[in-house]
């Protein structure tokens, strides 16, 4: 994968600014649990997760060669942290998830494409609870598939992507958490303009 990205970067420079495409994205993110906590013997275990959240982002697409695009993008999701045990569930605090990814997209115009990307995800929230002491940038991998269609000078599309990243904020580490990760499912509508393909 790093070889792909390195090759993409080099070829992208040769592609020229005229071929670049800017894409904006909006959609929803569904997240798996951020943590499971057994609490103590005899009590009700807790699961915390980010609620289904709206997502907005943008990406620059640079043609590398026929059917292959370099993609550099960022997105933000506005969510809430939700805790649930066997007794009740409640929103705990606001949660903003920011991601920045670099990847490649492969496909023919007007047909479904595949993309893969790597980068970082960071959670921003009030300095308390699970996020007391903050949360660092987590490396992330994302893979997806999408489809675009020309509409005049614009290109409309839809994309479904899956993302995987570790999650180990200091507060959970201090509580003795074993390492684990989070899966996120992103469903997005895309709108872009520019580019040759």
């Amino acid at each position, binding site marked *: 994968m790093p070889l792909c990205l390195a090759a993409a970067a080099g070829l992208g420079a040769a592609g020229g600014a005229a071929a670049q495409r800017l894409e904006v994205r909006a959609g929803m993110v569904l997240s798996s649990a951020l943590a499971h906590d057994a*609490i103590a013997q005899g009590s009700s275990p807790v699961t915390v997760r980010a609620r289904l959240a709206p997502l907005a982002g943008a990406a620059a697409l640079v043609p590398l060669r026929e059917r292959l695009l370099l993609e550099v993008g960022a997105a933000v999701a506005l969510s809430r942290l939700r805790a649930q045990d066997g007794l009740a569930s409640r929103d705990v605090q606001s949660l903003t998830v920011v991601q920045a990814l670099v990847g490649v997209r492969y496909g023919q115009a007007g047909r479904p494409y595949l993309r893969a990307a790597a980068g970082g995800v960071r959670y921003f929230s009030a300095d308390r609870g699970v996020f007391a002491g903050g949360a660092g940038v987590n490396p992330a991998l994302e893979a997806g598939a999408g489809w675009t269609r020309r509409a005049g000078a614009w290109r409309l599309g839809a994309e479904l992507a899956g993302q995987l990243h570790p999650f180990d904020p200091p*507060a959970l580490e201090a509580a003795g958490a074993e390492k684990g990760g989070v899966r996120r499912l992103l469903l997005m509508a895309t709108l872009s303009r520019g580019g040759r393909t």
Partner: protein
Amino acid sequence: MSARACARVAGLLACALALAGCDAPTVPARTGAYPFALQTVAGEVVMRWPAGGTVRVAVAPGGAAASNLQAAVTAGAAQWNAVALYGEYELVRVSDVADADVVVAGSDVPLPVDVSACPPSSPGFGLTTFCLSPDGRSLTTFPLAGGGGHIRMVVTVLASFATDGAAARRVVAHELGHVLGIARHSPNPADLMAAAAPTDRPGPADVATVLALYHTPATVVP
């Protein structure tokens, strides 16, 4: 690497993501929790504030130790709040007793509430007083001297401790544990909730106990 090879890598990554058995971080059960239930004539009851709620604590005005007690409440609240990983509760210090659920006072200061229906006994170092309602499901309200208010617990701190900053922090942090609903003392003398608190911050057993309390169904809700 050819475009076709890159596409294959992308496909493999997609498959890997779909199949990844990566689960969320798991915090194992904490050990060392001690009994927290309140013993009443009708048996044991679990008393705690509604999960996710805010408990407002005010210091009674007047007396030489008021500023000490205010600092102790602020520090104690921060210590207990720091261990509520999932928003189980939040202790907040308020300045006006009319806004408070709990009032903290030195033993040499007249209480701003009428406690005649349920008077505190003499404090040791500190004492948390509350009274079960007739139906045994909630706590009665101590009316403010001028009427009104919603104070359901009164914390009294022995005056000689209230005037000593470090002692006040220990006693108030311990009493805030009772305010949260830990109705018993820890059998471990090193814990904040031991009968004579040696520290001003909750230890692992105190943390396990308060979290177990807030993830156990309540039978009495203040």
